[in-house]
């Protein structure tokens, strides 16, 4: 994973020389409906809303999801063991009587649960919702943090 970051361009989407290839693979996988993770196992994405990006640094896992039009009160985040569950609903707008020209946005309930790859500190999970993006910061448990080993 680390070797993929040779060069850190400031612009997102151009993190490494291979990110464009990753992107292309993802798009092709989506097209043929057989997404796989990096090790070639079928990916866990079950086509469940919301779509989630999971990243990590040394101390934390980060979960991000795009939830436009969902307020914090409409969201419920639960954590058990190594699992995180997000449930909520997106309210149908009030002006139902009006004549619609286009309806592309979806409304209704959603719920999604997933397991993190390592142990976490459940008491220190932090979630923020800003501009329609939910960010959950999950501190890793001591066991899951990488330890540098001194060479004598």
């Amino acid at each position, binding site marked *: *994973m*680390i070797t993929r*970051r040779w060069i*850190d361009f400031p*612009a*997102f*989407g*151009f993190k490494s020389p291979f990110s464009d290839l*990753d*992107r292309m693979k*993802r798009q092709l996988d*989506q097209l043929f409906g057989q997404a796989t*993770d990096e090790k070639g196992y079928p*990916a*866990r*994405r079950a*086509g*469940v*809303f*919301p*779509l*989630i*990006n*999971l*990243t*990590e*640094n040394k101390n934390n*896992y*980060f979960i*991000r999801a*795009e*939830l*436009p*039009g969902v*307020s914090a009160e409409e969201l419920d985040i639960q954590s058990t063991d190594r699992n995180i569950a997000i449930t909520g*609903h*997106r*309210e*149908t*707008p009030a*002006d139902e009587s*009006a*004549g*619609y*020209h*286009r*309806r*592309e*946005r*979806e*409304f*209704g*309930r*959603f719920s999604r649960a997933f397991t993190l*790859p390592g142990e976490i500190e459940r008491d220190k999970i932090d979630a923020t*919702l800003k*501009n*329609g*993006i939910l*960010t959950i910061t999950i501190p890793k448990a001591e066991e899951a943090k990488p330890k540098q080993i001194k060479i004598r």
Partner: protein
Amino acid sequence: MDTTENKEIQVMGKHEVAGPAEQTKPGPVFVPAVDIYETQENIILTADMPGVTAEDISIDLRENTLTLSGDIAPYESADEEDIAIEYEVGRYFRQFTISEVIDQGRIDANLKNGVLKLTLPKAEKAKPRKIAIKSD
């Protein structure tokens, strides 16, 4: 009991723009999902643009083409490694042709929780007028 409130939201992958013109900035560009509806006085457009702030959004109505675009600041910090990526992040761009005459001076835009709500008031002459029929 299949009301919209109880409906499960289906995943709709973000739709990437295959624009007529090449973009000047690198990175993917997406089409925001929109609802457009019309009331007696207004045309109301709501667009899902998660991650966009009010400063980064631009709305432009020229002739009868409405252009929506939104820039996004990267919100991943540099030291983060990807584990599972299900969606891409990028700018938003979409254009509409508006057939109705719009009162440009009173256009109102409101951004809340990543949803842009644009109220386009119809100009006087485009409003439906009830015609009273007189009978003797």
